[in-house]
């Protein structure tokens, strides 16, 4: 599903974020990406949805080699990948419903489909009753659920989450994790960068630790392995 071959990434300012990374993630896997701040986690995440391009190496997603991907086809790659951020990135002037629908409108989905898909996914994250509220009327956990709803409304094969519980209290974090597990059970591949020792050590999944731009550990049902 996702194959990284000897990926190197050096930014224009001279910083080497990744020094040679080989990772193979299968369809339907749930993977935590852990490691110290600035070790290359975010770069790894951004490479997958083609926010940045590698300096060397190959990334293959669903049989598609990203080096061969033309700039104008990047949007079609992104439609297969849902992305969730620490800071939710919701549009404050749109309601919850509109925020989720926006993701479908801009890829020119038909109105009939938008209505059903949005209501379905709001049901999944348990926010059907808040559809007409605005983001600032919701708690942090609820806002994150909206952003997850937006990420998965188009049925992507892969969901990438960059510290999705980073801004949330522990209790809310568990609720969010439940949703990710639910999505994973439905067959979606999940890649989550996280700093939460509790989550990684409690909900056991594959753990990839990135340190100084290299894969330091890659274990099924692994431990977090760092002191918080």
């Amino acid at each position, binding site marked *: 599903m996702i194959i990284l071959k000897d990926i190197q990434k050096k930014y224009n300012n001279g910083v080497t974020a990744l020094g040679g990374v080989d990772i193979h993630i299968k369809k339907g896997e749930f993977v935590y990406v852990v490691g110290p701040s600035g070790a290359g986690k975010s770069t790894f995440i951004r490479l997958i949805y083609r926010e940045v391009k590698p300096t060397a190496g190959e990334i293959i997603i669903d049989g598609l080699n990203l080096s061969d991907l033309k700039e104008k086809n990047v949007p079609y790659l*992104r439609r297969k990948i849902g992305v969730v951020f620490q800071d939710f990135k919701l*549009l404050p002037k749109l309601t919850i419903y509109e925020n989720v629908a*926006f993701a479908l409108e801009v890829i020119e989905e038909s109105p009939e489909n938008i209505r059903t898909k949005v209501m379905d996914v709001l049901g999944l994250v348990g926010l059907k009753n808040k559809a007409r509220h605005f983001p600032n009327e919701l708690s942090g956990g609820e806002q994150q659920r909206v952003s997850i709803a937006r990420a998965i409304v188009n049925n992507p094969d892969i969901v990438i989450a960059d510290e999705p519980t980073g801004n949330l209290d522990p209790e809310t974090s568990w609720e969010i994790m439940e949703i990710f597990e639910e999505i994973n059970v439905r067959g979606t591949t999940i890649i989550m960068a996280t700093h939460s020792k509790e989550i990684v050590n409690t909900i056991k999944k594959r753990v990839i630790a990135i340190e100084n731009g290299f894969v330091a550990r890659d274990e099924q049902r692994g431990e977090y392995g760092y002191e918080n």
Partner: protein
Amino acid sequence: MKMASLQEMNSEVSTAMKIRTLIRHINEGFKNISRNGWMSFASIGAVTVTLILVGAFLALILNLNQIAHNIESDVEVKAFIERTADENDVRNLGTEIESIAGVKSVSFASNDEELESLIESMGEEGEAWRLFKQDNPLTHAFIIKPEVPKDTTSIAEQVTHLDHVREVTYGKDTIDRLFTFNDYARNIGLVLIIGLVLTAIFLISNTIKLTIMARSEEIGIMKLVGATNGFIRWPFFIEGMLLGALGSVVPILLILVGYNYLDGNIREKVSFSFVEFLPFYPFAIQLSLIILLIGVFIGMWGSVMSVRKFLRV
């Protein structure tokens, strides 16, 4: 059969989708304009000023061209024949002139006819010339019309060298001066217009830059969820085109009203045969369309510049 109908349905669906998308883009374009308030107003103002000047210069230059053209097509070469030439010489000369390349027609005017037309053209003062009827000082002449006005000089030149030709005259100087004046007007107009067009483009691109910045969050999310670059760009294109088109409204009204006034009032006062303004219809309509097109072009160009710079999609 089933396949075909399925395909047809698909194409219908996608056309419907495109119309809906287009409506969305136009909506967004209008929203952007009202969102940027004063900056939009400034852009539209810049386009308006530019287009008023463009319109005025175009109307002036095109009319001058027309006048010059009218005069030019009236041009004829007059070859005066030496008194010593007999009838035979005159006939030979006529054939020779006719055989010159580019000559459309040659007509003979006897000295009596020349005098008659001179007397007529001078009105009452011409009466004095009647005295000369007894002993006509004028000579016979050939009146030569060139095929194309441009050939006037070369035809005149060739006729001068023929036997029995005393003198050749033609109204080339007047036309040359008119054309020189025309060129000046055109060049000054062009420089002014280019400067103003650039200013208008700059202002529009700045206005659109503001929209892009105000909506950077939204654009970021659009990119993230896989909106195509075209989809992201379109509203800004439309915003630019609308700014340009709105800027052309006042200039077009001015052209229609102003030209109609000129057409009605000046035409009668200027009664030289060669000064003939281009008629209101279709000229003013064509000019209005040109102004609208230039406005839309300015708007599009402004948005292209902005989108390129600030929207690395």
